[in-house]
């Protein structure tokens, strides 16, 4: 073709490629809660801000929002916590029920995590989202063996404690998974399991019976020292951002979540989103995650410990 036309064509091609890239980068995956999507211009604004270490709410790239946690808002459950991380609000209730153990693991109890979004957040894709969050929480809390399931066994093969961790996502402004894991850790730290005794059955046929303590205050806390916290790092453009808001999540290419326990060990990792991260990028993200996880652990343990000492004083 003639000389001016190839230039025009390449410009058009470049524009097309740019919009395609933007579209790809705006689909981070199933964990998004946004009801309204952002425009390409807002996306460019957020991305350039992040490159200059200034996010829309004034935070730096590695600044985590302040969270505040309220323990035992639901006294009817064995343990509960309400956590607010910016505008994201989650409510966790922990209930311990006596049930039959799995046939493959007769000497262990179970931990079951279920996440549901409040009906006001329901919409297209909310069921998929709830299932994804339930699976992620189950992986971080239950599959990582952070809670001693052998201690939950009551009568091997017959009865065990099943710890149900039910989460309701009341409001969402990004980073819902981290908020859920923090709230679950607080709720489990606040949980009291009723004491019971296993005695021989009165009929003398060798069967065992369970006797629950009559005193409602006779209960044991769970050992939650090995429970991790989750830190999600979102890649926006070529930079990494911690604790993304829902607007930032919409411009993200990929998101890595690390679950890190109080000793700094990585309990589980997961990556969502279509974008790719280089191996050195992953190591860098992990370093940031480690630092932030330490701060989160300190804050959440302080809240749980102060509440349990208040509770002991009351009793």
């Amino acid at each position: 073709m003639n000389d001016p036309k190839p230039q025009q064509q390449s410009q058009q091609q470049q524009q097309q490629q740019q919009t395609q890239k933007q579209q790809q980068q705006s689909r981070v995956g199933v964990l998004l809660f946004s009801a309204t999507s952002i425009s390409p211009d807002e996306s460019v604004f957020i991305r350039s801000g992040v490159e200059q270490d200034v996010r829309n709410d004034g935070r730096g790239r590695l600044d985590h929002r302040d969270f505040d946690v309220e323990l035992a808002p639901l006294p009817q459950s064995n343990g509960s916590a309400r956590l607010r991380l910016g505008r994201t609000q989650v409510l966790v209730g922990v209930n311990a029920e006596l049930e039959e153990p799995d046939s493959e693991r007769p000497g262990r109890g179970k931990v079951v995590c279920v996440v549901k979004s409040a009906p006001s957040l329901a919409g297209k894709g909310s069921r998929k989202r709830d299932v994804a969050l339930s699976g992620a929480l189950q992986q971080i809390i239950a599959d990582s063996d952070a809670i001693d399931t052998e201690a939950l066994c009551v009568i091997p093969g017959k009865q065990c404690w099943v710890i149900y961790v039910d989460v309701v996502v009341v409001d969402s402004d990004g980073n819902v998974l981290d908020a859920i894991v923090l709230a679950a850790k607080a709720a489990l730290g606040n949980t009291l399991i009723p004491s019971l005794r296993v005695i021989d059955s009165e009929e003398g046929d060798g069967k065992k019976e369970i006797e629950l303590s009559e005193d409602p205050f006779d209960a044991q806390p769970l050992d939650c020292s090995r429970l991790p916290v989750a830190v999600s790092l979102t890649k926006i453009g070529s930079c990494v951002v911690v604790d993304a808001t829902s607007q930032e999540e919409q411009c993200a290419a990929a998101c890595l979540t690390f679950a890190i326990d109080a000793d700094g060990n990585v309990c589980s990792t997961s990556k969502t989103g279509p974008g790719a991260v280089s191996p050195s990028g992953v190591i860098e993200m992990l370093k940031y995650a480690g630092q932030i996880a330490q701060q989160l652990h300190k804050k959440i343990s302080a809240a749980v410990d102060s509440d349990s000492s208040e509770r002991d004083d009351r009793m």
Partner: protein
Amino acid sequence: MEYVSPEGLRLDGRRANECRKIACRLGAVEHADGSCYLEQGNTKVLATVSGPQEVEQRSQMSHECAIVRCEFRTANFATSQRKDFGSGGDRRHKEAALLIQQTLADLVLVQLFPRSQFTVCITVLQADGGERAVALNAATLALIDAGVPLKSFLTACSAGFVDDTAIVDMNYVERTSGGAEVVVAVHPDSGHVAYLQMDSKLSIPHFQGVMSLAVRGCKQVNKVLRRFVKKQIMATRSK
């Protein structure tokens, strides 16, 4: 088991005509146009309102007035024994949602918003008796928080008949005693009944006694809720 002692005291120390302690917070959820977190005794309910907004299902749109859509859910940890109600809720939830929707469709001045929709979502966070009444109250408060024009400050209350005594605002233990429960919602100024539901059997004179006790309970609750709303409005105005 004795639910009402000979001196007239119930299990939690209340008298037959005393309602439970109420706490409420408007604007509990930021993404909704209006929301309310309401506690009556140990029953805790969260209600959110969105609207007026575009009608989701074009076939249901009305050219004369707005439609009200209501969702009613109970959290898995709400009941004393943990129960997973599934994503759609069971039949009782759908029935409760339908009745609340009909009540609210009459309460809201829907003629002012043709071709639009109000979505009211109610979640019971802890169930200790009287959930439907508390849900209606929470929905009304959420509508007030959203600034939606209403006919009046509708309030609901439940009452029942246990141990030959009519008692108001029953908790879970009293509710499962086997006696009847009547849930009533009245417009406070006119005294008109907007919602009435009873399950179980009651003779007519007993029913009249329980119903009038419930209506008096509604007026009590209305007074308390009005005070809360005024306080919160004053607080936001002074900011």
